[in-house]
């Protein structure tokens, strides 16, 4: 039973998304209703506002996804939903809707780890070859994951302080760039040069962990020092210097992990995987080292239910089933989440 039609729901942060995924390979539909315009006025995602928008949007998005895919609930084999990590109030809207659909049509319910979803977005580009290493970079995560087979995740490196995406947001705020900060810095960096020589934080030799809080402070200090001296910073060079420091460490550790683990592929996942500077640097390094690099297309890097449906397919095939008592787990561990 390697065939499946899965309806999946993602509502862990500020996107309400529903997808229909065939056999873990084909997106029949992947509808994403973004709240970004609403949260812009606050300069970041406000959990209560996000939860309210999810309730307003959820059945519209389910309906759009089903009709775009041209299927009905009767055709669906299982209902999948992001169980965590994420904003608890936001997660609960998706979970409540998923349970209602599963109960109403007597279909199995499958909870999916959000990051497992991001990783599995790559399966839509290239079939996964094990063992593999995945670099996960998003607003809340910076991790190196080792996968010996489907559904098994070993965190071999993670950030000890800020996630890369968080550092991007804070630096963007320091430079008064519009929300969301990541893409804004990426665009600005493309026009500047690495002139500020910010530190590259590598931690102990051999470590796959990351640290971005020192870098973030260096950037903020550079801006403040310039202000005090009555000078102006060159924003594009500051952005380019910050981005160069982040990317150099990410690429270096990812490539080293692939070699040390004898991985067949390097995957990239998470919202920051949309960063053009990072994509280019990884591609260059991977080509030089003869490593197969897989990066999802831009529209699958952000949060979407399609990736949740792909991860759910592999969990479904392995027999993972959750009960109608499933709860949202805002701090869900990846290593324990997707086992049956």
């Amino acid at each position, binding site marked *: 039973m390697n065939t499946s039609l899965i309806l999946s729901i993602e509502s862990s942060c500020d996107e309400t998304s529903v997808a229909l995924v065939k056999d873990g390979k084909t997106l029949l539909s992947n509808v994403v209703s973004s709240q970004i315009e609403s949260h812009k*006025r*606050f300069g970041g995602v*406000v959990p*209560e*506002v996000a*939860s*309210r928008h*999810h*309730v*307003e949007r*959820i*059945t*519209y998005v*389910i*309906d759009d996804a089903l009709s775009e895919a041209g299927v009905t*609930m009767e055709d669906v084999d299982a209902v999948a939903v992001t169980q965590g990590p994420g904003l*608890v*109030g936001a997660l*609960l*809207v998706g*979970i*409540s*809707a998923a*349970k*209602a*659909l599963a*109960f*109403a*049509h*007597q279909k199995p319910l499958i909870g999916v780890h959000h990051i497992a979803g991001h990783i599995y977005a790559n399966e839509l580009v290239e079939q996964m070859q094990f063992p593999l290493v995945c670099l996960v970079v998003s607003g809340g995560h910076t991790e190196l994951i080792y996968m010996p087979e489907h559904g098994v995740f070993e965190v071999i490196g993670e950030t000890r302080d800020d996630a890369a995406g968080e550092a991007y947001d804070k630096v963007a705020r320091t430079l008064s760039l519009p929300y969301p900060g990541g893409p804004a810095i990426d665009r600005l960096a493309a026009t500047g040069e690495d002139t500020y020589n910010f530190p590259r934080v590598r931690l102990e030799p051999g470590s796959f962990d990351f640290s971005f809080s020192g870098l973030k402070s260096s950037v903020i200090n550079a801006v403040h020092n310039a202000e005090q001296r009555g000078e102006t910073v060159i924003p594009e060079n500051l952005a380019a210097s910050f981005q160069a420091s982040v990317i150099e460490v990410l690429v270096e550790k990812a490539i080293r992990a692939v070699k040390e683990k004898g991985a067949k592929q390097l995957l990239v996942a998470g919202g920051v995987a949309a960063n053009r500077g990072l994509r280019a640097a990884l591609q260059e390094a991977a080509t030089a080292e003869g490593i197969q690099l897989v990066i999802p297309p831009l529209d699958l890097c952000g949060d979407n239910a399609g990736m949740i449906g792909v991860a759910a397919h592999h969990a479904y095939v392995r027999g993972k089933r959750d*009960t*109608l*008592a*499933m*709860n*949202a787990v805002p701090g869900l561990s990846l290593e324990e989440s997707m086992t049956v």
Partner: protein
Amino acid sequence: MKQLMIDTATTRLSVALSEAGEIQAEATVMVSKNHAVTLMPMIEQLMAAVKWTPNMLERIVVTTGPGSYTGIRIGVTTAKTLAYTLNLPLIGVSALKLMAAAPNTDLPVVSLIDARRGNAYIGYYQHNQALTHDQHAPVADWLRLNSQGRFLVVGDIEPFRDVLKDYEYVEAPAAHRYGRASDLVVFSDETSDVHAFEPEYLRLAEAEAKWLEGQNNG
């Protein structure tokens, strides 16, 4: 008409099933720790007890709030998704109106859901008809402006005894102090558009209120 009724607006979790206006099954937990975990299994158990399958349902009634933001979102999302996917009419009822329907009385009924620091979500009903709109307000101010003569109080009475002592009020007996999902059986009018169905928070999210304030102050 086989009807599913749900109330998750406060710490109480209540589910009931009725057919032709007769209650078939009901379960109420007065202090539910986690509606997210308990609601769906409770619906499933009650349906199994009366041997109904989901496709036999004909109507859904749910409290829309005010109350716990998370609680009402769980109830409303569950109800609207069921109504959408089973193509059923959906009815939303104020959680304060449900509480006011619990005691059998001719007096006007004041329903209170504690919202801390002297504030409450307040409803004012008589024979299931609203005498004022549901409000979020300081209870002392609200009583001064609205109450006339004797009234009956339901809901969270304890935090407001001090304020209430200046008024001529009657306390609902403990068993009728809070509504149960089965009390929703009397509310069967006013079906809503399922997709546009939303909770009644009665309050903006804090960040939104502050943002609006900032806008108004230029």
